[in-house]
């Protein structure tokens, strides 16, 4: 009887020798932490670009407002002088020359709330990922075994490489986009400068 009990208990104790769950948990803890880290980095990069683009939009609107103000001064002057003909001519040309509308499918999303939503979502995501990584870390510290990990190793490598590619592309494209936004800002400054110098 004692030999039996000892044998069964020894075998049951041995059943803890699998390391599959620990290896998986370990890998996923590492991957989850990495996702969290890169996600936060890219969120900051995207915020920076969005800020640059907002600045250019503000500049464009300011330049447009300045040009509109110059135009209004002429119209006001003609109105004061009773020159209705010139005012009518301007209105007619504006009405006749209809601006072409591009077939762009843009959702009417309120810009401010969209900005806020992106920032809040990024923070919430980081917290959740942090929590997942910690919990997985606890599991990874435990007991031991199996070989199912071969598949997941290859699998994660494939996914990791896809994510890496996408991220490299994003870094590159974001840098290019920032350069282009900066070029646009310079062009706008030059256009606005030349407009104010144009003799009337």
């Amino acid at each position, binding site marked *: 009887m004692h030999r039996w009990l000892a044998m*069964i208990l020894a075998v049951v104790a041995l059943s803890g020798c699998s390391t599959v769950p620990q290896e998986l948990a370990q890998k996923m803890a590492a991957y989850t932490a990495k996702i969290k880290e890169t996600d936060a980095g890219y969120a900051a990069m995207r915020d920076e670009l969005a800020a640059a683009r907002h600045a250019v939009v503000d500049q*464009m609107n300011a330049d447009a407002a300045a040009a509109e103000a110059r135009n209004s001064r002429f119209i006001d002057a003609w109105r004061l002088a009773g020159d209705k003909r010139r005012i009518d001519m301007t209105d007619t040309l504006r009405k006749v020359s209809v601006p072409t509308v591009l077939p762009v499918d843009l959702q009417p999303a309120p810009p401010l709330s969209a900005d806020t939503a992106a920032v809040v979502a990024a923070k919430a995501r980081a917290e959740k990922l942090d929590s997942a990584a910690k919990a997985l870390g606890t599991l990874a510290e435990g007991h031991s075994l199996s070989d199912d990990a071969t598949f997941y190793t290859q699998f994660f490598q494939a996914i990791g490489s896809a994510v890496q590619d996408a991220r490299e592309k994003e870094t590159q494209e974001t840098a290019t986009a920032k350069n282009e936004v900066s070029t646009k800002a310079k062009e706008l400054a030059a256009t606005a400068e030349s407009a104010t110098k144009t003799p009337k």
Partner: protein
Amino acid sequence: MTRVALAIVLSGLVVGSSGCGIPLIHLYREADYTAAVKARTAFTEAKIGDGLVAERTRLEALLKSELEAVRRFALARRDELLIALLAETDAKKSWERFDVSVNERLLVLLDDASAGSGTKIDEATLKKLKDAADGLRLKTVTARLKEEEMALAVHAYRIEFARGHPSDDIPTLSCPSSKDPLADIPTLTVALKAYKTACKDYLDARAGMENIQGPSKSDGLWQGLSSQVKTAEGVRATVQNRIADLKGQYKAAKDAYAAASDPKEVQEKAAALKSALDKLAKFDTSNVPGGGTLGLMGRIEALQAQLASVNKLVDGFTTGAKAGATATVDQRADVAIARTIGSLAATTEGASKIPALGVLLLESRRLELELERARGLLAVEDTRLALLKRKRTALASEIDRLRDARLQADTELSDKSNCRGKPVAADFGTSSACGQITAFALIDVADSWSEGRLVEEQVDWLLLGLRYRSSVESSEVALRQWNNLVDVPLARLVAYHESGIKLETVLALINSAVLIWIGAAQ
């Protein structure tokens, strides 16, 4: 003897299912189970890929505000020019201003993109600018006409083909065509000839548009953009042809593999099949200048082939296929194609064995997402080309409007009595001949902004937005993939820790063993 047998059964049950394979039986640990559930819940709630959806919403909103600002600024500048022309009370200065605004812009569009305001334009240069604008108008009108002729010829061809071959699918005509379509009856030959002639004339007109020469530099916005579009189209055709060749090689390798019978030949053909698929998947555009992401066309073909094979193997499980079984003749090619996938090639099962269902399902989802990403990136390239073409149309429109404005101001006005002897605004709005001509000239100038310049500037911002959006979308699909693939093993971990043997179960097992032992002893 009975005790030994029982010992072997019990030991086998536990050992065989525990240690060094996939564990089926293990001890339950409350803390591990709770940690696994917590990990999965937190990971699921993080919704990694969804975070970028908010980013995309932000991009859309940004792009919209950019386009609105571009429009506002362009229209303000247009009105500024019109008001300045109408405000000038001195006749000479008024028409000089008109001439300078039109001529300088034509120079930038047709000869020198970097020409600044105040550039002197002599009479000879001006004449060449007019000739270039005339040439562009002629070629544009011809191209449009020939496009309509092609559409009519296609219509006739379809009718004649359907009449002559009622049970066949009607082949699609393309201009230029890579091969001659069927023309085996006289009426079909006539329709086809009309199509080919119109196509040739259309291509000539397009080439003429692209080759418009400026007075000296021929380096205007028009030439730059035309050459960009032409190059993009040429590169696309080159890549498409190369992919078609590789696709043909892959199909031949697949057929050869299916036909192979002796083991050595099967092995050789399997290697050839893998090599053909690899060539498609890793199609390199480095030797195709400007190829960029177009190489994804090959990757898409390879992913489609792998996904089709993986899905066929998954379907096989519904009709009795077994994981680890040797593939039948029908399954052989699909197994070989599936085994070209890194994770499946790396598993320890034999190359001709059917992989496990769970693994195939994971790969199926991964391949679907990878395909979605590749198709999305390629679609961005298509949109980029479409936007460049839209900008080219806007440029042609601007040149045409400025050409008409120039024509009114030069020929028509100089022929009329002293139209240029009065300020631009003098006769505008009256029914006199000068008044009508001036109205046309000013409307043309206004339209050069409304139909041309405004659209060109908006397209520039759309291209910028597209560049950034494509990278965010690419990251979004990649992260969704990661999300799915971390979540599956996490679910497994939860199930694993939940399924552990609890202490009370172990005690019950011991009690049963004792009872058996007592029974066996009696």
